[in-house]
């Protein structure tokens, strides 16, 4: 058993409460009607299978029931970070040691789910 940090609950919770939902950051084609079969097939069925850093969608199924993203290393299984929907990962294949902050200006986090 291990712990996963839920960015919405703001604490470490048992892995048993979570469920993986596949690759993250899959953008739906903006105009599906004008997609070629290949483009649409890629969007629906084809997923990356990298050796190294992978961004995944997880859900805190027993808990707050929110979807969020995990950056995970597929060789060591290490979870490098978890971040909310709409945010960008800090650890990527180009920046395995963490993306340098852009002149100290972090992109404004989206307050998803809280519409006020």
């Amino acid at each position, binding site marked *: 058993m291990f712990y996963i940090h839920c960015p*919405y*609950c703001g604490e470490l919770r*048992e892995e048993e409460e979570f469920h993986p939902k596949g690759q993250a950051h899959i953008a739906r084609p903006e105009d599906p009607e004008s997609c070629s079969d290949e483009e649409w097939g890629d969007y629906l069925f084809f997923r990356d299978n990298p050796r190294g850093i992978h961004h995944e969608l997880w859900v805190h199924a027993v*808990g*707050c029931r929110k979807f969020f993203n995990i950056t995970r290393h597929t060789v060591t299984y290490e979870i490098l970070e978890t971040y909310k929907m709409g945010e960008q990962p800090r650890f990527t294949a180009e920046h395995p040691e963490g993306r340098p902050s852009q002149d100290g200006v972090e992109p404004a986090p989206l307050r998803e789910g809280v*519409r006020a």
Partner: protein
Amino acid sequence: MSNVATFDTRTEAKIPVESPLAYSYRRSGAPAPTGKSRVVLRERPFLGHLILRGGAIVLDEAVREVLGVSLPGEPQGLVQDADGERSVQWLSPDEWLVIVPGGEEFTLENRLREALGDAHFAISNASGGQTLVELEGEAARELLMKSVIYDVHPSQFPVGKGVTTVFAKTTVILRRPDELRWELVVRRSFADYTYRWLLDAGDEYGIGVKG
């Protein structure tokens, strides 16, 4: 006020109602608490459970106005009114559970709807779908340690905290309203399972059931 159809889910007084555990009491029994009981279980049936969804700021304003308590904005927060009869619990960034004495929920729902006006929100009455089980006594925490995967040590689980977590093979909302009591909000369909699990797990502490 929006044009949502609402109705009072409580039946007329002449129609008998049964708690979700009525069947379990008949089938599995309810051992009376004795002097040796280190944990005592008590069901609080027929309370009003409302699920509020929407933006924290808008809901906070309405809940303050109607219930007189502030909405817990921090994750895992649980607030109660002065006499501990009414509580609001954080469930998710846009979802809260309100528990009030039975019979108050329909009035509360209507008053909240009025206070919220045209805001973007949803209120659903979950009273029939879940029940509240209380655990009290010195061994209550030990019993929970055997049953839930969440860390219930006081340093991790102070008074005024509530989490949704895994209990045995089901899920419960676990909350700690004060130093002595733990509350489990269980789903109706899992109430019997939860009850029997608690009786079995609490056997070594001489668990008693208060009627």
